[in-house]
């Protein structure tokens, strides 16, 4: 009994320790190491071979050169700010589009709802890359949207949407819409119809009832949905890379370029650390919110 319990706990524990915790510590270590042109392209700051004295010497050697570099070069700061800005605006847009859809789903006849849920989830199961690829065909200069609009005579010059920030917004809204709709739907569906009937009986208009009852009661879903879009959008790589232009700086893309194009592992690791530090605040807030919400329900 004892040994089997130990085995039960240790197996996933060791796996996560080795493949999650240790890699994470290595990132920190490399972020604090000097970059060199070699393979692998960094000078290790710690080496465990020299024992405790060696370790102490290594600690003395630690430097924040990579982080200073990030702070001095304006391009990184810009990329961080821009990621937060793009993620925030895209989250707001997703909410504005997702809310009416989730609202309609919650109001739909009961036997439609399972099918509607399936329809909202289905695109989420198809490859992310294909979903972004689909938008390249629509948005590019000689793409579907421009050709259609030109044929209809609405525009005579193709709209330059591809390789702009607008294309990135469209990509994020499209890819993360299910993450917004699902928690919204869950909280809207739970609202007691009697409250709305009571409001109506007491002379409340439809819009006022929505503003005073439905909206406040759906807030937990709004918050959860926003976090579920905002958090992954900040570190997004594929969307800004494929839909955005060279002017669309986002931090996931910066990390990628730093690693694969500039081969500067130290700076890439430092970028990763700063990215995680930025994410800690929304993640902790999200977890608090979820816990509070769970307690209220339970």
């Amino acid at each position, binding site marked *: 009994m004892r040994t*089997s*319990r130990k085995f*039960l*706990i240790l*197996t*996933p*524990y060791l*796996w*996560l320790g080795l*493949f*999650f915790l*240790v*890699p*994470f510590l*290595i*990132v920190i270590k490399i972020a604090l190491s000097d970059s060199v042109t070699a393979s*692998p392209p960094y000078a290790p700051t710690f080496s465990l071979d020299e024992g405790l004295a060696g370790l102490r010497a290594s600690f003395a050697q630690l430097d924040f050169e990579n982080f200073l570099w990030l702070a001095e070069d304006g391009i990184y700061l810009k990329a961080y700010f821009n990621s937060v800005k793009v993620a925030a605006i895209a989250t707001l847009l997703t909410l504005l589009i*997702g809310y*009416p*859809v989730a609202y*309609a789903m919650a*109001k*739909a006849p009961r036997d439609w709802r*399972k099918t509607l849920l*399936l329809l*909202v989830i*289905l*695109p989420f*199961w*198809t*490859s*992310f*890359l*294909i*979903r*972004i*690829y*689909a938008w*390249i*065909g*629509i948005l590019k200069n*000689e793409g579907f949207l421009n050709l259609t609009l030109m044929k209809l005579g609405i525009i005579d010059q193709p709209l330059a949407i591809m390789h702009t920030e607008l294309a990135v917004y469209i990509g994020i809204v*499209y890819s993360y819409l299910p993450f917004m709709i699902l928690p919204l739907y869950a909280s*809207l569906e739970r609202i007691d119809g009697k409250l*709305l009937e009571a409001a109506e009986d007491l002379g409340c208009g439809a819009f006022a009832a929505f503003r005073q009852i439905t909206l406040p009661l759906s807030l937990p879903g709004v918050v959860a949905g926003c976090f579920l879009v905002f*958090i*992954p959008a900040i*570190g997004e*790589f*594929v969307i800004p890379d*494929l839909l955005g232009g060279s002017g669309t700086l986002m931090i*996931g893309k910066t*990390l*990628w370029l730093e*690693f694969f194009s500039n081969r500067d*592992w130290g700076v*890439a*690791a430092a970028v*990763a650390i700063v990215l995680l530090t930025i994410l800690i605040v929304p993640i902790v807030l999200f*977890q608090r919110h979820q816990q509070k919400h769970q307690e209220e329900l339970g």
Partner: protein
Amino acid sequence: MIRRFNMFNLTSLTFGLAFLYLPLLLVVIYSFNDSRLVTVWGGFSTKWYGIVLNNDAYLEAAWITLRIAFVSATLATVLGTLSAVVMVRAGSFPGRTLFSGMIFAPLVMPEVVTGLSLLLLFVAIGLDRGFWTITIAHATFAMCYASVVISSRLASFDRSLEDAALDLGCTPLSAFRQVTLPVIAPAVISAWLLSFTLSLDDLVIATFTSGPGSTTLPVKLYSSVRLGVSPEINALSTMLIGIVTFGVIAASLINRRQERRQKQENRAAAAAA
């Protein structure tokens, strides 16, 4: 919710679903386009499918991707089940907070960071990048999703059934196998399917952890997509969309049938009592 489904609701549903489906539908339609110019319709043709199916690079990548997805999903499900049991059943043990942190963190970690950190680990321990490094990477982040899915089922499961089995002389392992596992089986299957799809779909982590000769389909697709839209990619995408659609609809039908059967059984049991 008060049920008065009006025009406004119908319109938002229609627009919402059109927004979700039109882009994919266009890819499907243009995959049957005879013309190489992707947005000019040149008549119906299935020739691009033939070209994709004769492209060895795509086929090889697809085969590697499927193998990785199968092995990593299986590993992730086993590890995820163990973690779920630990989280829900093991009570307190030293390092429990760290453990739940390690289960939760990969869910919110940006893919670029996960990919980078695993690559740095593999370089540090001198493991050659290829099939196994991608598989380990996928198993690691998928096990966290699997654990969340299985935990929620396990938490709602009546523990007294397990206790009864133990009282009747079952060993913990056989009680788990004969009592707990059948009850949480639907969650275990969902967890496997989720892990499988996550692995099939992953580009970023696979790019970091793949080596020469182990290009997965998304990595291959990504390098083609960067060169622009092409009818071959449309055809390949259509095949993938078709497979996923079939899989998801089949899974949901099976699920519904099971639910119905469960309800009938419950009703029969209630009637008998």
